[in-house]
């Protein structure tokens, strides 16, 4: 069984496309589409890596990541943040609160796979 990734994203067609390419790459993929209970889903699923969108219904990706970094169990969990905003301030904020990587939409499938392989060597 491959490494386990949790995709937290609210755009269904992005979820489907990412799930497909990650599955074909050997990952075990779980998905979740709202921010409200995302932290508890991460704790329950214990993935090897999280792909986290910034703009989510219920709670922002920044808030979710902040909570994850405050918890010893998820303090070092690799998190790839996805955002439609590419301003340097957003990138700095993501790094400041502990994002492992930051990727701006639109991105290519190859970029996502490359980032994941760097964060979680197979």
């Amino acid at each position, binding site marked *: 069984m491959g490494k386990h990734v949790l995709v937290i994203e609210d755009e269904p*067609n*992005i979820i489907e*496309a990412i799930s*497909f*390419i990650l599955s074909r790459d050997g990952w075990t993929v779980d998905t979740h589409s709202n921010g409200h209970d995302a932290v508890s889903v991460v704790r329950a699923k214990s993935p090897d890596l999280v792909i986290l969108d910034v703009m989510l219904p219920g709670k922002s990706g920044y808030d979710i990541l902040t909570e994850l970094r405050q918890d010893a169990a998820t303090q070092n969990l690799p998190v790839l943040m996805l955002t*439609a905003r590419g301003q340097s301030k957003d990138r700095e904020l993501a790094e400041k609160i502990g994002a492992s990587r930051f990727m701006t*939409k*639109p991105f290519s499938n*190859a970029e996502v796979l490359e980032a994941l392989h760097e964060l979680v060597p197979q």
Partner: protein
Amino acid sequence: MPQRQLTGSRIRERRLRQGIRQAELARKAGISASYLNLIEHNRRRIGGKLLLSLADVLDVEPSALTEGAEAAIIATLGEARAADKVVAAQTEAPEEFAGRYPGWAELLVRRHRRVLELERTVETLTDRLTHDPHLAAAMHDVLSTVTAIRSTAGILAETPELEPEWRDRFHRNINEDAKRLAESSQALVTYLDEDSGEETGLASPQDELEAFLTDAEYHFADLETAGADKVDTILESAEMLQSAAGRSFARQYLERYCDDAERMPLVDTIAALRSLGTDPAVLARHFGVSVARAMRRMAELPPTDGVPQMGLVSCDASGTLIFRKSAEGFALPRFGAACPKWPLFLALSRPLLPVRRVVQQDMHGRSAFLAYAIAEPVTEPDFGQDPLFQAHMLLVSLGPTDWKPEEVRGLGVGCRICPRTDCAGRREPSILTDGF
């Protein structure tokens, strides 16, 4: 060097500008060239008859030689110098520069003011781009859809052995996303096209009302005399009121305007302002109206001699701004929350108690405002219902000598575009500084 000691520099500058030799000017003024040389280098004080003679020969008013550049030009030069880290430490007085080179000084002052105007424009546009919820949502929608299309198209192009059911599914997704992208792009373009006359559904009725009031400069001369009979005529000709809700808001505003004008007639209000001053509580007592109504009426007045420029901001009990009339030098956030240090919010936290503060947004200390704020109930007293309050803040522009630095409260527009650091009210980082 004090201004009065620069008379010689101004005489020299005028003489050179007119191409007159020193000896020639000295002869025409009845003095020796060597004495004029001492005067021009500010080594001899000059006044009386000799000043009049030199001014006569140079064909200028004597005051142009003794007073030189106006105080405002010198003050602005001082501000320009203070704002630049490189030259701020220089010791040359701006008076000396303005006295020796009045033309260059004026040019520098005009450029400095233009820079300030442009900075304000950038702040306003940045505020819009970062806080406009419609724009942010529309951009997010477009970029998310593009991402889905790119990722799905990548799968279709790069996976030759793709199963037919997956291929059909991804084709369907791309088709859906392409349609969605077309719609969201069109909505975005329409929203950004200010000339569009169509009701887009993206501009709020509040936006329409603000555009309508801004266009009228918040004053309706027809309503001052004709009253409510003219409301329909005004609404019919208001092209920016596109939605039914926008027109309804405008009607409510105009009907209240008529009521204000009836209780505080224009001529009487202006006369009262001139004789009693700008304290809205004093005017409220004078006309027997609420302080909120007096504030609103003061902000409805046309530009009038002897009456300072006034802005008005109102918020509901949640702190959301529901009315904005800006005053030059005091910016209001287009979107997003305002600075929590505004007296408006202090008033909201202590209803019915008037608040008066001298406030300043400008960190360079150029303009200050007297802010009067009060929160009043908008509902009738009812023992069965909790009262609902709205707060209002009238901003009266102060002259350069009307305030003392020690009484000024510094505040901002909103956290996102506020460069102030170490602020207890900060709730989010500024795009201008690190903020926290």
